[in-house]
């Protein structure tokens, strides 16, 4: 039986989401149409929006549906940057461990729109070095257009000090965006409590469908749009709303994430790894998502490990792959002080609601043989 330990990449859709989505697919009507079928679609979307708002801790009108977490990140970062730039602020502050869906738009803004990127480093545990940010704000607060720091990291699971960041930034009226794609439903998360300006979410990480994301954007705030057209979502995001995916997303958010169980499985795996492979070590902070174990296996190469694990029916992953599929050393691990080599010797196992004790045991049984082979194959 296949063992799926890549829930952070995407996790199985929950039955309720499949049912809600399937039913909605049979419903005729463009949600922007004024007639009865249109109103029916619109109603389903607005119910989903209201229900999602309760889970997110925001008001319904703060929810902007997008086609992915990536789009939510792009819309927030570019929009808030352009807004800041219009009043003479051109610095974008991000953390060194952001997902590519923040890193790359930031890079693009630097190359094409005159932005200056300041990347804040992390500690060896993968947590934002808060003192760096404090110092930066002391020196250059009035140049900063936006601060974007992820709520939790997708490779190590390390939770980031968002509350503290918002407190610091609000003293200077700097908007803060947070990519919470990995955190939603896994750890407590409330848009209003955090006091954020913007937040990004993605349905397929919580048991909803692929291709639907959410940008939560503070009420009343207007930012320039990326997609222009029908103006469906507050004029900030145009495009006919994807009603089936939206109701599927809401249904998934209604479900309960078995956080305690997942954390128990995670601890079992993390402790087991260092037990069966004595020189392996776990990367990351003490405060983490329940389901992520990032481990370094010295003397191996991650792509070899993935092939050997896959051959045994075990699906894990590494950091980022480039468009041609070549493994690159993870920028997250590098930022935590890893060498190129140790970063390339690391794997991410991400667990979810379906992960069982027997899954963990199977992985721990397979690991010694896999690591031995991978070490033999590491000829560099």
């Amino acid at each position: 039986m296949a063992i799926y330990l890549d829930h952070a990449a995407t996790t199985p859709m929950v039955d309720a989401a499949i049912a809600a989505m399937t039913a909605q697919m049979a419903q005729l009507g463009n949600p922007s149409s004024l007639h009865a079928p249109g109103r029916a679609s619109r109603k389903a979307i607005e119910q989903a929006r209201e229900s999602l708002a309760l889970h997110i801790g925001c008001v319904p009108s703060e929810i902007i549906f997008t086609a992915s977490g990536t789009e939510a990140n792009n819309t927030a970062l570019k929009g808030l940057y352009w807004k800041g730039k219009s009043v003479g602020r051109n610095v974008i502050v991000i953390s060194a461990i952001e997902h590519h869906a923040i890193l790359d738009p930031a890079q693009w803004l630097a190359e094409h729109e005159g932005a200056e990127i300041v990347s804040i480093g992390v500690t060896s545990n993968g947590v934002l070095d808060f003192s760096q940010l404090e110092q930066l704000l002391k020196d250059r607060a009035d140049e900063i257009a936006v601060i974007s720091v992820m709520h939790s990291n997708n490779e190590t699971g390390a939770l980031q000090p968002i509350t503290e960041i918002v407190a610091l930034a609000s003293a200077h009226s700097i908007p803060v965006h947070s990519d919470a794609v990995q955190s939603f439903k896994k750890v407590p998360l409330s848009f209003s409590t955090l006091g954020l300006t913007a937040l990004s979410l993605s349905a397929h990480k919580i048991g909803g469908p692929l291709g639907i994301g959410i940008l939560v954007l503070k009420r009343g705030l207007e930012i320039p749009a990326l997609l222009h057209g029908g103006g469906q979502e507050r004029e900030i995001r145009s495009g006919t709303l994807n009603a089936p995916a939206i109701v599927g997303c809401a249904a998934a958010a209604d479900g309960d994430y078995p956080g305690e169980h997942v954390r128990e499985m995670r601890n079992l795996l993390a402790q087991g790894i260092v037990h069966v492979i004595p020189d392996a070590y776990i990367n990351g902070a003490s405060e983490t998502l329940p389901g992520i174990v990032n481990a370094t296996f010295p003397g191996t190469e991650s792509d070899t490990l993935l092939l050997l694990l896959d051959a045994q029916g075990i699906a894990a992953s590494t950091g980022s792959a480039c468009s041609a599929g070549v493994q690159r050393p993870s920028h997250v691990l590098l930022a935590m002080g890893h060498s190129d080599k140790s970063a390339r010797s690391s794997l991410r196992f991400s667990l979810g609601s379906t992960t069982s004790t027997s899954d963990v045991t199977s992985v721990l049984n397979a690991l010694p043989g896999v690591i031995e082979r991978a070490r033999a194959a590491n000829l560099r």
Partner: protein
Amino acid sequence: MRLIAAMSGGVDSAVAAARAVEAGHEVIGVHLALSSNPQKYRSGARGCCTVEDSHDARRAADVVGIPFYIWDMAEEFHEGVVENFLSEYAAGRTPNPCLRCNEKIKFAAVLDRARAMGFDGVVTGHYATTKDGPMGKTLHRAIDNSKDQSYVLSVLTVEQIQGAIFPLGDTEKVDIRKEAAARGLSVANKPDSHDICFVPSGDNAGWLHDRLGSEVGPIVDQEGTIIGKHKGAYTYTIGQRKGLGLTVPTPDGSPRFVLKTQPKTNTVVVGAREDLAITKMYGENPVWCGPAVTSTPTQGFVQIRAHGQPLPCTYFYDGEKLIAHLESELLGLATGQAMVIYDDDRVVGSATVCETQA
């Protein structure tokens, strides 16, 4: 057997992988990423280094129904093949990078890694065959003479040949394309790659110019008299007649040919056609694809180009160099090329030409 299929994204390696699966082996497809920046070496649709090629390879693996991975061999490729190519040219020799790639990458880095991971061998789409006989597993020419690639495989040791599987050697290329189409492989009509995969648009001279510079130097005759100027000695090939730009005619009006290039002095030496003729060649760094060649002169054939003619010769090994005496004269042989010895259709071994004699 458990096998790694090296899949370039072309039609040959796709069919080779499919045949290996059909033969009952457990196969995993691997595409070798040979450039750390996939668009760097080449931007056309063909070759071995583009994103499109890795996509084609992946789709072929899907159709064949095997797992697929990309292995990053960019560093090994750069060091073992690209840098070697440049330094050979810079030293006035004419290298064959496909041969180096087989020697250093496909049947070394990849095969070694595959074996360490518990695989038994590597499947490729090369046109060549192997036979099991009294000498063990030996390397032979393909049935399709026009496609035969045994020349570029002549750097494989006995040990490497053990782990090499060439499922296409018994078939004509046209039939491979038909088979690919019948198997539903979308690469069935993808054009072959002919050029050097890391040189964009086949502009070898331009590519070398960019990297080695183009320092003007003298063209001299065999007496050392300067009779012209050249732009970078390495862009000239032995036996070249056109494009020398010489204005001083020979006394009898006969044409001049490039006899050799001397990179140390950045000099190109020219002379008459008959001065190109050689009958003896010496090769260094020999590799034996079967039993080692001895000091006993033996009748056979030597081939000096990938798709060249096999030339009748007597060959032997003096303990240091592989030596071939040709039965008839050969015009123009550059050092750096591989001399590959054949016993009928069996590849005996090869060496890098380091010296020639009339």
